C-alpha cells in the first residue's frame, strides 16, 4: 500500500515537473514568436521591455538619450543642466544622429525611472532609456577595436556569432600586402597569424606580392585583420584566407593589362571574392573581359565606385559583372568624395575625415609607412577604397555561411542592405538604436536620382545603390538565423528535456521502469541543442559552438540552413547504428541527440530560418519559404522525437 502511494507521488511529481518545463519552454517559444514587435508598438511597450531586462543587462549608472536630429553639443549641454546630468555623444557616428550617453546619479530603479520620465518629457528628446549591455555577441579583445565605428555600423559583432569567413579566399588586387618577412619587407604585426593563399606580383613578376605603398595592406586589414589576438584592430572576415596580388606600384598606379591578368589569375586560383580598391576613367576592353571571366567562374568582383565626388562611376566598378561600392561616413551620409551613379550597387563605410576634420572618422587598420616599408603603424584612411573591402569581407562571411554562389551573395547583400530613408539605423550593439540622419535623405533627394520623385526609386538610389551594407540583414536574407540572445539556444535545451520526460511518460510502464535517464542522454541533448558549447571555454573558439541544426555545410551548401543538419537525418543515422547493438552509451547518446535535435528544430520553426535544398523553398522569398521551412522543422522535430522514444523502448542491455 505504502509502496503504491509512493509510486503515485512520484508520478504526480514527474507530471508537475514536466508541465512546468513545458510551460517554460512554451514561454520561450512565444517570446521568439512574438519577439519582433512592430515599431508602432514599441513606445507603449517600452516600460515592459525595460522591466524585462534584468539588472545584469543594464550598464549600472548609465543612460542613453536620443535627442531630436540637429541637436548639437552646445544645445544638449544647455538642456541637460535642468536634469543635473552630463551626457556626451556616444561615438563618432552620433554627431548627426544626436544619440548621447551619460552617467546618472540615480541609485535606485525608482529614481532612475523618475529621471528618465523627466528627460522623455522634454520636447527635444526623442527617447531616453537605460543603457543595455548586449552580452550575447562575440567582442574581440583587440585594444583599438573601439575605434572601429564602421564595424558597429554594419552589425559585425552579431554576425561573427554565425560566420567569420572561414574557408573563403579573398583576393586583394592592390599595391601588395605586408604579409611576410622578406628583404626589406616585414609583415605588419596585426596580419601575423592571419591566413594567406599564394599570391602573385604582376608589377615585378614574382610570387611575392609585398607592399611598397601601404594601401593594399590597409585594405587587406579591413577584410581579414588578425582579430581577438590582443593586438591592434579587427577585420570583417578574420577567418577568411587572403590572396595578396600586386598590380599597383609604389605610387599606387598600374596598368590595365596587369590588372586584367590579375583578375583572371585570382579567379583561376580559387578566390571567391576579388577586392579591387582601384580604378580610373579609361575604358579597357581587356579589363572588362577579365571581370566578365571572373564573374562567369563564380567569383564576386567588388570594386570601388570612385573618389571623384561626382555622378560618374569609374572603371572597373562600371564594367558589367562588377559590384560597385560607394562610401559613407560615420553619419550614414554619402561621403563628399564618393562617386555615384546608376552602377552603384551598395554603400559601405569608407570614412569621412574631410567632413569633420576628425581623423577618427576614418577607417582604422594596420599598415606600413610609405616612407619606410618595413615599419608598421595604425592609420585612419578614407575613400571608396576603404568601403570596398567591407563589402568583400561581408561577402566572405556569406560564402562561409553557406551561400551557394556569387549570385546568392549579391542578392543577400542587396536584400539585407538598409535603406537610409527608412529612418531606423540599428548601428550600435552597445546602445539599442541609432537613427540615421535626416540629412542623408535630404542629401539623396537633392541629387539627380534614377526616379523623378524620390531617393529610392525602384528600391535603388544612385548614391547608395540597394542601400547601406548590413552584415546581419545579409545573413538573414540568406536564411541564416542570427541569435537575438543566448535564451534562444537555452530554449532548445529546455524543450529537449521536456520532450525527454514526455517520451518517458508515454512509454509502456514496463519499458519505462527499465529505462533510466542517464547523464549521457542529457549530454547528447546538450551538444545537439547548444553545439560544442564547451569549445570556447577551453580556448578553442569554434564555429561548431552553435546548435547542431545550424552547423554549416559549405560543400553541399545552399543558402539557408542545410537539410543535412537541419533535419532528423543525423539522429536517424545514429539511431540506425545503435538501436540493435549492446553499446548502451551509444544508444543513450543517440537518444539525447534525437531529443536535442527535436528541441532545436522546434525552435527553428519559430525563428524564421529557411531550409535549403528544397526545390520549392527559395531562401528569402518571403512567407512561402518561411511556411514551408516551418513545416519542415516541425515534421523533422516530430520524427526525431519518435525516434528518441523508440530508442528509449530498447532494453538497456540491447535486444537479445
Amino acid at each position, binding site marked *: 500500500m505504502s509502496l503504491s502511494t509512493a509510486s503515485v507521488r512520484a508520478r504526480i511529481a514527474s507530471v508537475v515537473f514536466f508541465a512546468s518545463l513545458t510551460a517554460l519552454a512554451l514561454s520561450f517559444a512565444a517570446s521568439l514568436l512574438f519577439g519582433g514587435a512592430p515599431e508602432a508598438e514599441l513606445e507603449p511597450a517600452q516600460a515592459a521591455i525595460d522591466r524585462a531586462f534584468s539588472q545584469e543587462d543594464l550598464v549600472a549608472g548609465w543612460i542613453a538619450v536620443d535627442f531630436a536630429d540637429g541637436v548639437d553639443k552646445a544645445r544638449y549641454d544647455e538642456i541637460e543642466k535642468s536634469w543635473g546630468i552630463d551626457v556626451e555623444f556616444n561615438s563618432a557616428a552620433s554627431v548627426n544622429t544626436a544619440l548621447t550617453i551619460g552617467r546618472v546619479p540615480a541609485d535606485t530603479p525608482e529614481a532612475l525611472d523618475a529621471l528618465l520620465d523627466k528627460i522623455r518629457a522634454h520636447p527635444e528628446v526623442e527617447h531616453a532609456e537605460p543603457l543595455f549591455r548586449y552580452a550575447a555577441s562575440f567582442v574581440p579583445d583587440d585594444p583599438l577595436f573601439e575605434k572601429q565605428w564602421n564595424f558597429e555600423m554594419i552589425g559585425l559583432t552579431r554576425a561573427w556569432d554565425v560566420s567569420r569567413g572561414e574557408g573563403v579566399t579573398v583576393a586583394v588586387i*592592390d*599595391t601588395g600586402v605586408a604579409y611576410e618577412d622578406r628583404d626589406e619587407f616585414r609583415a605588419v604585426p596585426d596580419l601575423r597569424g592571419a591566413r594567406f593563399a599564394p599570391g602573385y606580383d604582376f608589377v615585378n613578376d614574382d610570387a611575392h606580392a609585398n607592399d611598397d*605603398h*601601404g*594601401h593594399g595592406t*590597409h585594405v587587406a586589414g579591413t577584410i581579414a585583420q588578425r582579430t581577438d589576438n590582443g593586438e591592434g584592430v579587427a577585420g570583417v572576415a578574420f577567418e577568411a584566407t587572403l590572396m595578396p596580388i600586386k*598590380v*599597383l*606600384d609604389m*605610387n*599606387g*598606379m*598600374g*596598368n*590595365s593589362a596587369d*590588372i586584367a591578368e590579375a583578375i583572371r589569375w585570382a579567379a583561376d586560383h580559387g578566390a571567391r571574392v576579388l577586392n579591387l*580598391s*582601384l*580604378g*580610373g*576613367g*579609361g575604358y579597357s576592353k581587356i*579589363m572588362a573581359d577579365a571581370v566578365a571571366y571572373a564573374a562567369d567562374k563564380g567569383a564576386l568582383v567588388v570594386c*570601388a*565606385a*570612385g*573618389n*571623384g565626388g561626382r555622378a*560618374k562611376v*569609374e*572603371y*572597373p566598378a562600371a564594367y558589367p559583372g562588377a559590384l560597385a561600392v560607394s562610401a559613407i561616413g560615420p553619419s550614414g551620409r554619402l561621403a563628399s*568624395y564618393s*562617386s555615384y551613379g546608376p552602377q552603384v550597387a551598395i554603400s559601405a563605410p569608407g570614412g569621412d*575625415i*574631410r567632413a569633420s576634420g576628425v581623423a577618427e572618422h576614418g577607417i582604422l587598420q594596420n*599598415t606600413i609607412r*610609405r616612407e619606410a616599408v618595413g615599419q608598421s603603424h595604425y*592609420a585612419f*584612411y*578614407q*575613400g*571608396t*577604397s*576603404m568601403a570596398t573591402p567591407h563589402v568583400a569581407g561581408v561577402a566572405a562571411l556569406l560564402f562561409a555561411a553557406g551561400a551557394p554562389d556569387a549570385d546568392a551573395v549579391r542578392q543577400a547583400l542587396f536584400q539585407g542592405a538598409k535603406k537610409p530613408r527608412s529612418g531606423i539605423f540599428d548601428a550600435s550593439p552597445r546602445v539599442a538604436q541609432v537613427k540615421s540622419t535626416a540629412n542623408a535623405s535630404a542629401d539623396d533627394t537633392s541629387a539627380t536620382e534614377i526616379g523623378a520623385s524620390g531617393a529610392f526609386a525602384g528600391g535603388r538610389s544612385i548614391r547608395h545603390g540597394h542601400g547601406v551594407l548590413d552584415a546581419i540583414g545579409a545573413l538573414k536574407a540568406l536564411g541564416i538565423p542570427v541569435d537575438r540572445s543566448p535564451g534562444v539556444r537555452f530554449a532548445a535545451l529546455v524543450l529537449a528535456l521536456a520532450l525527454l520526460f514526455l517520451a518517458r511518460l508515454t512509454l509502456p510502464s514496463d519499458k519505462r521502469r527499465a529505462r533510466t535517464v542517464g547523464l549521457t542522454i542529457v549530454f547528447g541533448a546538450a551538444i545537439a541543442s547548444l553545439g560544442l558549447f564547451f569549445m570556447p571555454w577551453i580556448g578553442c573558439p569554434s564555429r561548431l559552438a552553435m546548435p547542431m541544426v545550424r552547423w554549416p555545410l559549405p560543400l553541399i551548401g545552399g543558402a539557408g540552413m542545410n537539410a543535412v543538419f537541419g533535419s532528423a537525418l543525423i539522429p536517424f543515422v545514429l539511431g540506425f547504428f545503435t538501436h540493435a547493438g549492446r553499446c548502451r552509451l551509444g544508444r543513450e547518446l543517440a537518444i539525447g541527440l534525437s531529443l536535442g535535435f527535436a528541441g532545436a528544430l522546434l525552435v527553428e520553426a519559430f525563428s524564421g530560418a529557411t531550409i535549403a535544398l528544397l526545390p520549392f523553398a527559395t531562401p528569402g522569398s518571403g512567407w512561402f519559404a518561411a511556411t514551408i521551412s516551418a513545416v519542415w522543422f516541425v515534421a523533422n522535430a516530430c520524427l526525431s522525437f519518435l525516434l528518441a522514444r523508440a530508442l528509449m523502448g530498447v532494453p538497456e542491455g540491447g535486444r537479445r
Partner: protein
Amino acid sequence: MSAQTFRGTIRREDLSGGYLVLITDDGHRYLLGGATKALREEGLRVEVQGEVLGEGGPSIAVTSDPILRVTGSKRL
C-alpha cells in the same frame, strides 16, 4: 607620347592614404607618378617634366584624372 613640361601647384590629397596631384596653372589636374620624392609638399610651386599616360589609368586614387609620370622637376 613624348615628355612635356607643366607648371603648377602640388596638392596632397587625403584619400586612399594620400596621393599627389598637380594642379596646372591652366586648371588641369594630373595624378603624379614616377619620380615624385621631391614633390611631397602641399602647396609647392613646381615645374614638372613628364609623360601623360592617357586618361584615367587605374590607381588607388580611383578618379578619371590623367596620370602624369614624372621624369624631372624643379621648385619655382
